[in-house]
C-alpha cells in the first residue's frame, strides 16, 4: 500500500510499504477513505519531537471502512463493513484511566512506556504515527490502518454524512471542543484563543456553542489573513498580532479585566509576540537550552484575568524556559491541558453534527491524493495557496 513515511526532519516521502496485518486477536484493519495532515504532524516534520525513526509511517486523523477483524473482536460492537473514525489516542477500555474517560492517559496501550516514564515521569497512551514516545504505532496517512483493541477504538459512524463532516472527530474537533469544554465557560465570559489553525477554528466554534459572551481570535494577519477571516465568519472578534498590541486589545475588549479563559491553540513552535522574544527562544532551542518556544503560554498567563483559566490544547513535548510562574501563582490561575480524550467526546459531538449545530467541513481547503502528501505538507507548513486543512484521499 501507499503510505506517508518520515525519513528525517524536513523529509517526508510517500512510499510503497507492506500492507498491515492482524497482529493481535483484537485488531482490525480499516481501509481508509479520508486521512488528514494535522498541525502537530508539522512538529514531527520540523524535528521537534524526539524518538522518531526513519521509515515510521505518520498520520493520526483517519476514517474508513472496516476491512477485516481479528478473532477476539466483539462482533456486537464492530464488524466488517462498518464505517468508522479512529481516535488518535489508543485506549484499552479497561484500565482506571479509560474507565474514567481519560483515554489519552491509558495505562496499557503504549508498548514503550519506559520512554515516557523517563521523559514525563509516567507514560501516556499509544498514539498512531506519532513517534516512539507514544508507542511507535504505524500511522494513518496510508491506505490501510491496523487498529489495536478495535472494538474499543473504532467509533462507528452513520453512512449518510459526508467524510469531511466526520473525519475531524478523530482528533481536531474533539481537541478544540475539549480545550473550551474543560474551562467551564459561562454566559458572562470572554474567551481569547491564540492560533486560528484548524484546532483554533474548532475552539472558536466550541466556545460559541458553550455560550461564551465574546470570543476573541488572535493570529498573524500578515502571514495568514485567510485564517483570521475564517475566524470572523465564525463570529469571533479578531486581533492581528502583527499590527496590534494583543494585551491592550484584550483588556479593552474585556472591560479592563482580562479574558476569563485564554486558550493556546498554537503549541511549541510559536513565533514570539515580538522579534526579541522570538530570537531569544530560537537561540535557546538551537543551543538546547529549551526544546520549544512557549511564547503563547507566556502571553496567555500575562493576559488572562485574575483567577482565570489557561487552557493548552497546543502540543508541547519537552522543557521550556521563562514561564512566568510568579504571575501564575499570584494571579491564582487554573491550567487545563492534555492530549484529547477523543473517545469521551465523540458521541456528543456526533450528535451536534447530526443536528447541524457544527459542520466541521468548513476548515477543509484542500483534498489531494495521498501520493501528493509531500506537496500537501509543503503548502500546509508554508501557508501557501490559502491552505488551512488538508485531507488526503488514500483511494485516489
Amino acid at each position, binding site marked *: *500500500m501507499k*503510505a506517508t*513515511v518520515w*525519513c*528525517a526532519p*524536513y*523529509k*517526508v*516521502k*510517500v*512510499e*510503497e*510499504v*507492506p*500492507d*498491515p*496485518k492482524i*497482529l*493481535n*486477536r*483484537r485488531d482490525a484493519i480499516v481501509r481508509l477513505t479520508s486521512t488528514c495532515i494535522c498541525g502537530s504532524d508539522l512538529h514531527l*516534520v520540523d524535528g521537534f519531537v524526539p524518538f522518531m525513526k*526513519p*521509515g*515510521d*509511517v505518520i498520520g493520526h486523523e483517519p476514517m474508513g471502512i472496516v476491512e477485516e477483524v481479528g478473532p*477476539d473482536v466483539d462482533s456486537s460492537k464492530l464488524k466488517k463493513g462498518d464505517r468508522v473514525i479512529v481516535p488518535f489516542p489508543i485506549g*484499552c*477500555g*479497561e*484500565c*482506571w484511566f479509560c*474507565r474514567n474517560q481519560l483515554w489519552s492517559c491509558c*495505562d*496499557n*496501550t503504549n*508498548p514503550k*512506556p*519506559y520512554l515516557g516514564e523517563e521523559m514525563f515521569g509516567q507514560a501516556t497512551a*499509544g498514539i498512531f504515527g506519532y513517534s516512539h514516545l507514544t*508507542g*511507535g*504505532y*504505524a500511522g494513518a496517512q*496510508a491506505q490501510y490502518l*491496523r487498529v*489495536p*483493541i478495535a472494538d474499543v477504538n473504532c467509533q462507528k459512524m452513520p453512512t449518510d454524512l459526508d467524510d469531511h463532516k466526520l473525519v475531524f472527530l478523530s482528533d481536531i474537533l474533539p481537541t478544540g471542543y475539549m480545550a473550551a469544554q474543560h474551562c467551564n465557560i459561562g454566559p458572562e465570559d470572554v474567551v481569547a484563543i491564540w492560533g486560528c489553525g484548524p484546532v483554533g477554528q474548532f475552539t472558536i466554534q466550541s466556545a460559541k456553542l458553550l455560550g461564551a459572551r465574546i470570543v476573541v481570535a488572535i493570529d498573524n494577519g500578515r502571514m495568514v489573513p485567510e485564517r483570521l477571516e475564517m475566524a470572523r465568519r465564525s463570529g469571533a472578534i479578531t486581533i492581528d498580532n502583527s499590527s496590534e498590541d494583543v494585551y491592550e486589545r484584550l483588556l479593552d475588549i474585556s472591560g479592563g479585566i482580562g479574558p476569563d479563559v485564554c486558550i493556546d491553540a498554537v503549541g511549541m513552535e510559536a513565533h514570539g509576540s515580538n522579534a526579541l522574544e522570538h530570537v531569544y527562544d530560537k537561540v535557546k532551542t538551537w543551543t538546547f537550552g529549551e526544546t520549544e518556544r512557549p511564547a503563547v503560554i507566556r502571553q496567555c498567563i500575562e493576559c488572562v484575568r485574575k483567577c482565570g483559566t489557561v487552557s493548552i490544547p497546543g502540543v508541547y513535548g519537552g522543557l521550556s524556559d521563562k514561564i512566568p510562574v510568579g504571575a501564575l501563582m499570584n494571579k491564582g490561575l487554573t491550567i487545563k491541558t492534555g492530549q484529547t480524550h477523543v473517545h469521551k467526546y465523540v458521541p456528543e459531538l456526533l450528535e451536534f453534527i447530526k443536528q447541524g449545530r457544527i459542520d466541521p467541513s468548513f476548515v477543509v481547503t484542500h483534498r489531494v491524493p495521498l*501520493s501528493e*502528501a*509531500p*506537496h500537501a*505538507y*509543503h*503548502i500546509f507548513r*508554508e501557508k*501557501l*495557496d*490559502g491552505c488551512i486543512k488538508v485531507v488526503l484521499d488514500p483511494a485516489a
Partner: protein
Amino acid sequence: MTMAYSTREDIQRARFSGEKLQQGPQPRRQPQRQFQNVGEGERWTSLASGAILAALGLVRNDTVGYVMAGIGGALAYRGASGNCPVYSALGINQNQNATPQQRLNRRGVRVTQTFTINKSPAECYRFWRDFKNLPRIMTHLERVTDMGDGRRSHWVVKAPAIVGGTVEWDAEITDDQPDKRIAWRSLEGSDVDNAGAVSFEQSPRGTIARVEMRYVTPAGRIGSWISTLLGENPDRVIREDLRNFKRIMEIGELLTLTGQPQGTCAGHGREYTEKNSYMPPPGVTR
C-alpha cells in the same frame, strides 16, 4: 518460622522472605568481624596496582603525588587484607564462598514494581499461582513446569546454543497465602540464583500488586549472556515483563508492533524539503 535476628543481612532476608521479625529485646551479639569481600584475582590486582601508584606518587614528591600515594596505599591495603570498605558499604561481596541465599542477599540485583490492576486480588492470585502462566508475561521465559508436589517447579529460560540452549533452575514456593501473597526462590544448584515475591492488596481502584524479584548474575558464560540479554538496564527489562502482568490481566493480550508496516526511505517517493521542491502555485507569494 520465627528466629532471632541481629545483623542487617538477617533483617533484609527476613523482610524479603516475609518471615515475621521477633519483637522485644534481642540477645546482643558481638559485632562480627568483617568478612573478606574482595575476590582472589582482584586482591592481587589491587595490591600490585596500589603499590605501583604509591611508588609513583612518592617519586613525584608534590601535592598530587601525595594524593596518588594515599590512593595507592588504600588499594594496596584492600588487596592485602581482602576487605574493601566501599564494597561493604554497598553490600557487595566478590568472595564466592557463600550459599545461594547469602549471595542473593549480599549482591543480588533487586527489582521492585507496583501496579494497580482492575481485577480482584483473587483473579490476580489465581493467574500468578499457576506458574505455567508466567511465560505469557515474561518474554524470556520459555516454560515453567510443575514438579508434581504443588510447591516445586522447574523454570526454563531460552538461551543461545553457546551456553547450552537453555538456562534452568528448580524453584520452591516459600510462602503461599491465597489471594494475598506468593513468594518463591531457586534451589541449590541453579544456573541463576533468584527469588521473587508478589503480594496483592485490595484498593478502591482495583488490586495493588507489588512484585519484587532478585537474581545474582553468575560468573562465566551464562553470566555474560544474561548481562547481554538484559542490557545495560536490567531493571527495565524485568519491569517491562512485570508490566505485562497488568496488561494480560486487564486486556487479555500484549499489544505488539512486530510486523507492522515500515518504510525504507530508499524508495522513489517524492521528497518534501524545506528548500521547496515544489513551486508555490501562481499568484501566491511566500
